[in-house]
């Protein structure tokens, strides 16, 4: 009896947690505005990486770009494509593009499985969904 009560309590707590997590989701428009800052705005901070593919095709000057701290949409796409090839191609044939919400689930899976960094995940998702 006591064990059943504990099980019920645990289940209730888990349900509350899941509910709370779902409740934290922001409206899509809000997240969209956060994920895509306007061109020219500071985008990469902290441990972020950046590369200009035209000058360093294999990601040589990530530091230089990060120091500059600015990025346009095309360069972010190029950066995303490069991360995609570096990371996804390490284990398997890089897939074609998936629909945005499918890719969002797959990239979360890959974050866990392939230990993608936060920045890799963001840039690859950006590249694969636009």
């Amino acid at each position, binding site marked *: 009896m006591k064990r059943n009560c504990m099980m019920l309590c645990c289940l209730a707590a888990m349900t509350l947690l899941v509910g709370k997590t779902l409740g934290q989701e922001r409206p899509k428009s809000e997240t969209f505005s956060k994920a895509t800052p306007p061109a020219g705005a500071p985008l990469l901070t902290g441990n972020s990486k950046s590369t200009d593919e035209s000058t360093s095709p294999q990601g040589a000057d990530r530091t230089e770009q990060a120091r500059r701290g600015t990025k346009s949409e095309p360069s972010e796409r190029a950066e995303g494509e490069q991360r995609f090839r570096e990371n996804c191609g390490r284990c398997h044939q890089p897939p074609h593009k998936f629909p945005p919400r499918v890719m969002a689930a797959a990239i979360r899976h890959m974050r866990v499985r392939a230990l993608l960094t936060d920045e890799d995940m963001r840039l690859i*998702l950006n590249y694969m969904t636009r």
Partner: protein
Amino acid sequence: MTPPVTSPKLKFGREYRKPSLGMAMKTLGKTIPGSVRHRFEVAARFAKSLIRMVRFETLMGLAVVGAFFIVSAGFAQEANDQDAKPIPILQGSVALISDFTGGQPDIHPIATPVVLLPIGQRWLFETRATFENDFVEVPGRSGFHGGPVQKEVEYAQLDFVANKFMTISAGRFLTPFGIFNERLYPAWIRNLQSDPLILPIGIGPSNASTGAMVRGGFQARPQFDINYTVYFSTVVTTTPVDSDRFAGGRAGIFVPKARLEVGASFQHLLQQERSNLFGFHAIWQPTALPLDLRWEYARSKRGSGYWLEPAYKLSQLPFLQNEMRRTQLVARYQEFFTGPAVSDSLPPVHTKQFEFGANYYFMDGLKFATNYGRQFSSLGNVNVWTLGLTYRFVVPLGPDGSPK
């Protein structure tokens, strides 16, 4: 002769009385005001009485729930910026592999569906199952005959992305020892359809662990990323989801400029011989060539060995470019050395194996694979042929967000 009437309960043990709140208060009430040390002792006795009132399982349950709340609340403010809300998806692969080992044909259909269930912005439930069968020729009967379909849940884990440095996973998960089991195992990913000889080292009896894992990847310096995994597995004896009791970890460094990843794995077995296992791995994709080079080494008390696998895509050839860019040549050389302890899943003698083959990608996800190899051991040398067709699929289980 009448044996003396004794009460073992009174003689050898003390009668157990379930502590109650009243007892605890009584304990507190007996205190005599004195030194600070004495007060501490009284407080400790009171706490002990209270703790005895609840059962161990209750405490464990509360601890787990509390930990979830703390972790959840602690990182709730760090929202992960995603412009597309993930939906549940069903993905996986189906494959039809036929191999001829030592002249014995074997048809091996296999389906491995993976269900991904994202919950909110930080949680993911993922599970992979395998349905497979082996069709072999039975003497005296025509055609191929298979037994019952083997079913297995390879992993079922709940992941919580705590922050950009750490993800916490719990449940049944693929043991992260080396790279093959966790990253290269599915039929649509692997370049050669046969398993490396050293695959059973360090991954447990059913290729998976039951317990918890902390892992993550982050950019340590602008020049390289670091990834790590630390895990603990407990004993499960229910077949086919059995697992051993061990703890271990894996760490790797990835240099994007050189496209080179090197890493090491360690595991300590907490049962049987309580031995240590370790391994090393490397993946290199030279930037000038469409070449993948993978290498893995593992050592345990039950044996050690390595494999080296180059795979070259013919995309640089100047003729038949449409076909060549879909074609990949693969080879693998591997060697296994026996250890002081024996294992059912590892070769019983020193074994060498060389394989080479080709993969042809008809389209994204559909691959034809063939390879030939020869195994050398004191038990006899055998040929290994493999032919296979693999298909990887992705099915959204909801509106996928594609533009109408």
